[in-house]
Every structure is written in structure tokens, then in C-alpha cells.
């Protein structure tokens, strides 16, 4: 088998805020079909990392190559992007199919005349994310889980070989979290797409994750879940005692200092 080109290569990346260094010397290369979760307390630069890959923000140092092209300009249609779930206002003048449709033609300048095949593409995307049943309903009346399915559909519009997810499960219930994860997981398996998945809680993706990038304490750790979610490793990273406890077949991370209200990261050891 010939090695496929890497969908994402980050080299020598550093991020500073003023004089504070969030991380430096970060090298990350994703293989096709690989899912890497990005964990870390809020303010550790997770979202900035994603935005840098999209060209929307600059790293303090280092370079990013996405899908074989060096990132220099803002925005990239070949990369799929799933944002956080923010409830859309009730009166938003969009139907479900229109929200997905933004991914198909939202970037096009020129007279707003649909191209042949647009409608079929939108229908296919709606079907892919299980949204066909509510395709013509106003998005403002849909549940958070249903809206998030549509955002996944929008992100898949160009069959991306690289998918960036920025806390896509926030404020979803457990069933919907699983539904969204399985949509993302299916896309990566079927299309051999690489996924970078920023999350606060590793549990919902633990069965799919190949590696974890943990950003904390001005540094980072990158490795297989079993190697990262470890008391010694995380204590070293945070510079404070952190315990990874086993509860049944699950791992619970206790004592991780976090700026946010929920100080616990729950983890589960692999294999």
C-alpha cells in the first residue's frame, strides 16, 4: 500500500497570548481516516488551533498544511467544519434544507440561480444525516439535536477529507451526542477522512478516537488514549496532582485545574 498524503500536517506550531505561551513546538500529522481528539481546559487554544487550520487565525509560529495545500488564505471549502451547537432563533427564516443548502451554494457570488444538481445534492446530504423527515420544517422549530444534524450535513457538502469539529456535542443530550458522533464516525470510515475533534468531554468519542492531543498548563501531550489519560502523564502536564481513577470499565480524571465550572474530565482506558 502506498502511503496516502496526510490530510493535515501542523509543524512547529506555537500559540502565545501576550507573554503567556499556550503551547509551542507542536507537530501533528493526521493519517487518512484517523480521529484525533483535542482536549484541554478552556483558554488552552483548542478553538484557535482549529481556526488556524481554516486560515481564520494566525498561529504565533509554525505552519499548517491542509489537504496538501499550505494554509495562507481565510476559509477552505474542502475542509468540513462543524461548529458548536447554538440554538437558532425561533423566527430564523430558513427551512432545514436551506441550512444544509448554505454548504452547497452559500459561498457563490452571482445571481442566486440554483445549478443543476444542487437540489439532488441537498437531498442526498439530508438523507445522509437522517434529516429527510424534517427537511422542509423551519429550523427555529427543530430541537438542538436536529439542528446539529443539519450542521453536520452542511459540513459534509463537499465530501471533505478533513473534518474539523469544534465542541459539536455541547448542550446535546446523551442520545443526540451519540447520534452526532456516529454520523461523523461513519463519514470518516466511508470516505477515509481525517477528523480533528475538539471536545471538553472525551467519553462520547472514546470508542472512535485514535489519538488524543491534550493541551494544558502551557504545554501539550500527544498520544494514544491509554498513554495520555494517565495520572502521571496528566499530573506532569498540569504541574499539579491529577488522578485518573478507574470506575468499573471507565476512567475518571479528578483534580485537573480548569478555569471552567466542571473540573472533571471523564475518561475510559482503551484496550
Amino acid at each position, binding site marked *: 500500500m502506498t502511503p496516502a498524503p496526510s490530510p493535515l500536517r501542523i509543524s512547529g506550531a506555537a500559540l502565545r497570548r501576550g507573554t503567556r505561551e499556550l503551547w509551542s513546538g507542536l507537530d501533528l500529522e493526521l493519517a487518512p481516516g484517523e480521529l484525533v481528539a483535542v482536549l484541554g481546559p478552556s483558554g488552552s487554544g483548542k478553538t484557535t488551533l482549529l481556526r488556524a487550520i481554516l486560515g481564520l487565525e494566525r498561529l504565533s509560529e509554525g505552519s499548517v498544511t491542509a489537504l496538501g495545500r499550505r494554509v495562507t488564505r481565510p476559509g477552505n*471549502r474542502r475542509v468540513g467544519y462543524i461548529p458548536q451547537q447554538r440554538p437558532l432563533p425561533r423566527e430564523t427564516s430558513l427551512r432545514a434544507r*436551506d441550512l444544509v443548502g*448554505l454548504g452547497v451554494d*452559500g459561498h457563490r457570488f452571482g445571481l442566486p440561480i440554483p445549478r443543476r444538481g444542487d437540489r439532488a445534492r441537498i437531498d442526498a446530504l439530508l438523507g445522509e444525516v437522517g434529516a429527510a423527515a424534517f427537511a422542509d420544517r423551519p429550523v427555529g422549530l427543530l430541537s438542538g439535536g436536529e439542528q446539529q444534524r443539519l450542521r453536520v450535513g452542511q459540513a459534509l457538502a463537499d465530501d471533505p477529507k478533513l473534518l474539523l469539529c469544534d465542541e459539536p456535542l455541547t448542550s446535546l443530550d446523551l442520545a443526540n451526542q451519540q447520534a452526532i458522533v456516529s454520523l461523523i464516525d461513519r463519514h470518516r470510515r466511508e470516505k477515509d477522512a481525517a477528523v480533528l475533534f475538539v471536545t471538553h468531554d472525551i467519553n462520547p468519542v472514546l470508542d472512535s478516537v485514535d489519538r488524543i492531543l491534550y493541551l494544558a498548563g502551557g504545554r501539550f501531550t500527544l498520544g494514544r488514549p491509554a498513554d495520555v489519560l494517565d495520572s502521571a502523564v496528566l499530573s506532569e502536564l498540569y504541574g499539579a496532582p491529577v488522578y485518573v481513577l478507574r470506575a468499573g470499565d471507565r476512567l475518571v480524571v479528578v483534580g485537573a485545574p480548569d478555569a471552567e465550572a466542571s473540573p472533571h474530565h471523564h475518561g475510559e482506558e482503551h484496550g
Partner: protein
Amino acid sequence: MNGDAIGNALFGGISQYGAILALVQNSVWAGALLGLVGGLIGVFVMQRDMAFAVHGISELSFAGAAAALLFGFDIVTGSIIGSLIAAGLIGWLGVRARDRNSIIGVLMPFGLGLGILFLSLYNGRSANRFSLLTGQIVSVQSAQLTALAVISTVVLVALLLMWRPLRFDSLDPQSAAARGVPSTWVSFGFMLLLGLVVAVAVHIIGALLVLALLVTPAAAAMRVATGPLAVPVLAAAFGVASAVGGILLAVMGTLPVSPYITTISFLIYLVCRIVGAARERQTRAL
């Protein structure tokens, strides 16, 4: 004012209606065009939550027109300069909604005050004075009418050309930026177009009443429709109906045009609200 006088003010011209219509024909066209463009751009004004900004721009546009009147240059040019300064300031300083509202709140009384100052210093025909605030399309000269129609047409074409990226950026700026929509340019372009439409509206309906053509029709359309085609088409239709209907009714008597336009557009909104609410109740009952 007794009943006869009111009747006369409302319908006094009805016996010569045909002749009057021929005289105001160009105004009707200009009104229709503004109704169309106003309805369409109103959809984005609603989506970007900028109704207050429209009002702020219109006050500075009024100040520009008043300055033009005082210093003796073309008042359409004056209103456009005022509009564009306001639109530029709001677009540049008010990226976040909260900043934007405070900037508009600061600009609006300043613009209105400035305009009133210029008008007070101006000694010309007094009819012109009032019309900038409350509008009087039928008294606009034909050369200016042509200018207003040309500006409206330019805005219409530009708006259609940037329609989809503007829509994406208005509804979901984060994802739009991720997919390569140049949001800075799109926002800037939108403010430019909005400034131009407001300047036109100031002459047709008056600085105080521009919202009746730039916000109300779109707000009404959004009550009863959700599709990407249905909303703008309805909004444009409501805008045209308000503007044209208002002019046609007003010239039957001696009253100004603007109250007719504002009343029609408000009634359309009211009906749409009732229809929308009834429909929602029905959906919920199912």
C-alpha cells in the same frame, strides 16, 4: 377641521384623478423601485438585526441632505454622503451588536440635531424642509427622481450578485467564514448598499419613516414564510404594495404620501402576524 374639509383632504382630487396620475407617474415608478429594493434588503436587515442601524443611518442621511440644502449643492448627493458616513462608521466601529447599538445611539441624536440646525439656518422654500423628515415623493424634481431610480437599480443588481454569500454570512457567520465567504467584504458591501437605499428612502418617505419600507415588509414576510425564495419575494411584494398603494391613495387628496405608506405597510404586518399566529396554533394542534 370639519367633515367636509377632511373629506376634501382625503378625496378632493378624485375628479381629476387621471390627470394627477399622469403627473405623478414617475414618482410611482420610483416608489415601486424603492419598495422592491427596500423589501429585499430588509430581509438582511432583519437577519443581521440591524433595524436600529437603519434608523441611525437615516438621521445622518437627513443631516447630509439638510447640509446640501443650506450650502446649495444637490440634496441627493448630500443625503448619500451622510448615509455613507454613518454606514461606514457603524460598520467599522460596531462589529459586535452591543457596540453597534451604542454607536448608533450616539450618532442618531447628533445627526438629527445637525440636520435641524442646517434647516433652521436655511431660508429657502419651507416645503423642502419638512419633506426630508417626513417625505414627499410627489414634490421631488424629475432629475432627482431619475437619480433615485438609478441608485435603487444599482443597489438591486449588487444585492442580487452578493445574495448567497450575504445570506450565509447573515445567518451563520462562523460557518460562512470557514467556507471561505469573505465576511469583511460582504459586511462592508452590505453597509454600502444599505447606506444607498436609506438615502433614497429619505427622499421618498422621509428620514423618520424609512423603517416602514426597509424593515416592516421583511418583518411581515418572515411571519408567514420561511423559504429562501418565499421570504424575499413576499417582502418585495409587500414593499411595492405599500409604496405604490400609498402614493396612489395619497394623490386622491391633499395629504402627504408618507402616512399612507406607513399605514399600509403596518396593516400588512398586522395581517401577517395574525395569519402567522393562527398557522402556528394549527401546527401545534396537529
